[in-house]
């Protein structure tokens, strides 16, 4: 019974967020077809960058231990609850001017640290003991971790705080305060680049650059690639393989933490089931780009974001999942290694 209610609430929340996503239609009469396209493209790119950041978490873990980390989306969901809790504790009215920016940075970094540590702990408790077990055991463990996180989210939503509506309905979607106003940051023609679009870009792009630098040029990054390519060889070089795996979980988790804050600000609602949606989009993005391949995850994320947005705009929102999964199937049939997955099975 409880579950049916929860499901209904979730669907309602999805429907609401879809209205947001297709907001471009409200001004249909005013926009030229060129501008409609551009507007959808902007929305798609913003969502795509968020998806990409989450997809990196999937692809890093897959690259290094060949696990589809089913708990990753739900980790991001808990991150959103954490962020909402911090926002609530700081007081929601304090978000103007420099104080607001400081607060925002605090929420971003805090949530990243939270998700990173949680992901590290999940690996330590649920995956590391299974390192020599079959891949299937590992996968089942990940699904178990996912259930636990979802239920933690359900519990968290019932805490007696303002931001959780005093915990009256733990399953209900929670409004995430619009800390960054949706006011236009720029307008070119009739196409609006909102401040949230700008925020997405300001958060995701530097993180991707930083990650690229880390993986390509730092000692840890090289060790991560070495472990992914040949764990035994890495041990024989004195690399503490478990430590490198732990670091990868931390980094992937914290990128998910950044992403979930931006996602929550963009969509202004969080729910204990949002992890499924976020996780599914990001997982498909990772597979589309070639799972295990970092640039592939970014490319896949952006493509999925844009495809979703175009489908929302030009078809209908209810077809979007069909389109996205259809593309996934086509990719798996005709190019199973993904767009950037090389003939050699490319990892990290």
């Amino acid at each position: 019974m409880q579950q049916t209610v929860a499901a209904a609430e979730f669907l309602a929340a999805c429907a609401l967020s879809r209205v947001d996503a297709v907001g471009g239609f409200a001004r249909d009469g005013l926009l030229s077809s060129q501008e409609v396209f551009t507007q959808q493209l902007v929305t798609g790119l913003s969502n795509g960058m968020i998806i990409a950041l989450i997809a990196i978490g999937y692809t890093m873990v897959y690259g290094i231990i060949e696990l589809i980390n089913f708990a990753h989306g739900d980790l991001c969901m808990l991150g959103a609850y954490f962020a909402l809790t911090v926002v609530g504790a700081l007081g929601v009215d304090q978000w103007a001017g420099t104080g607001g920016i400081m607060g925002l940075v605090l929420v971003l970094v805090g949530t990243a640290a939270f998700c990173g540590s949680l992901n590290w702990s999940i690996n330590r408790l649920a995956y590391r003991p299974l390192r020599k077990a079959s891949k299937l055991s590992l996968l089942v463990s990940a699904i178990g971790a996912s259930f636990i996180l979802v239920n933690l989210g359900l519990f968290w939503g019932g805490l007696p705080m303002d931001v959780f509506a005093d915990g009256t309905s733990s399953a209900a979607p929670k409004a995430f305060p619009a800390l960054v106003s949706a006011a236009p940051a720029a307008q070119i023609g009739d196409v609006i680049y909102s401040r949230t679009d700008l925020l997405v870009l300001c958060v995701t792009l530097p993180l991707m650059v930083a990650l690229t630098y880390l993986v390509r040029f730092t000692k840890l990054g090289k060790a991560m690639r070495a472990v992914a390519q040949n764990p035994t060889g890495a041990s024989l070089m004195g690399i503490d393989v478990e430590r490198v795996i732990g670091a990868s979980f931390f980094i992937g988790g914290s990128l998910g933490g950044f992403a979930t804050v931006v996602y929550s600000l963009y969509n202004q609602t969080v729910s204990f089931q949002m992890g499924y949606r976020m996780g599914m989009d990001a997982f498909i993005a990772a597979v589309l780009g070639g799972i295990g391949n970092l640039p592939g995850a970014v490319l896949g994320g952006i493509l999925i974001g844009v495809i979703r947005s175009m489908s929302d705009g030009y078809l209908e929102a209810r077809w979007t999942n069909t389109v996205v999964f259809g593309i996934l199937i086509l990719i798996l049939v005709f190019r199973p290694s993904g767009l950037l997955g090389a003939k050699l099975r490319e990892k990290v």
Partner: protein
Amino acid sequence: MTSAVSATSSPAPQSGGPRAPLLRVHGLKCSYGQAQVLHGIDIEVFAGEIVSIIGANGAGKSTTLMCVSRINRSSGSIEFNGASIASLPPEQVVRQGLVQVPEGRRIFPRLTVRENLEMGAFIRSDKDGIESDLQRIFEMFPILKDRALQQGGTLSGGEQQMLAIGRALMSRPKMLMMDEPSMGIAPILVAKIFDTVKNVLNAQGMTILLVEQNANAALRMSNRAYVLETGNVVLTGSGQDLLRDPRVREAYLG
């Protein structure tokens, strides 16, 4: 061959007086699942020696090295440089100064040659020292310098073997364990690699435990050797003695 352990000539370190071995393996046993493949192996390697392990396919040579490197679980004692390493994790063994060049090379195929070498120096943090050692490896194997920015996996088999050796040296080990460095490599290159091992590395004081199929070449360059058969040491002695031993000649030297 005979089942009894025989011809146990005591190791003869060059300088007088009894010395403790640098590596001492005693009663080493190892199993894969139900199948026991090492049945209590004793091996000693003294500082400055080249010691080889020869034996047929599947005798347990690689398994022995993997146990000593602590990749495989085993029972029995393993002492290096006077301390037990039998319960250390593999990365700590490397930090003690004992490093392996594994069979089949196991280089990192999608790291560049240079990055592969840098990973060899993972346990070190002295930037200048690493850089000068890198140059030394490039002098030892000039082909690696030409290929520095190429992915390791694109090198030829022989070049990959040089890379694997260079990579292991980058950690500045006290002792090197090499598993079939000649595997799948043209004879002329094998000669060059063995020459480097003997006349450069060993001559500069590096202690070497060498696993080889190529018994003839291995015994010629070794101070001492062990013959391994289905997980047991069946024969041990100086390289010269084993070269002349009729059982070795029949089984391994054709």
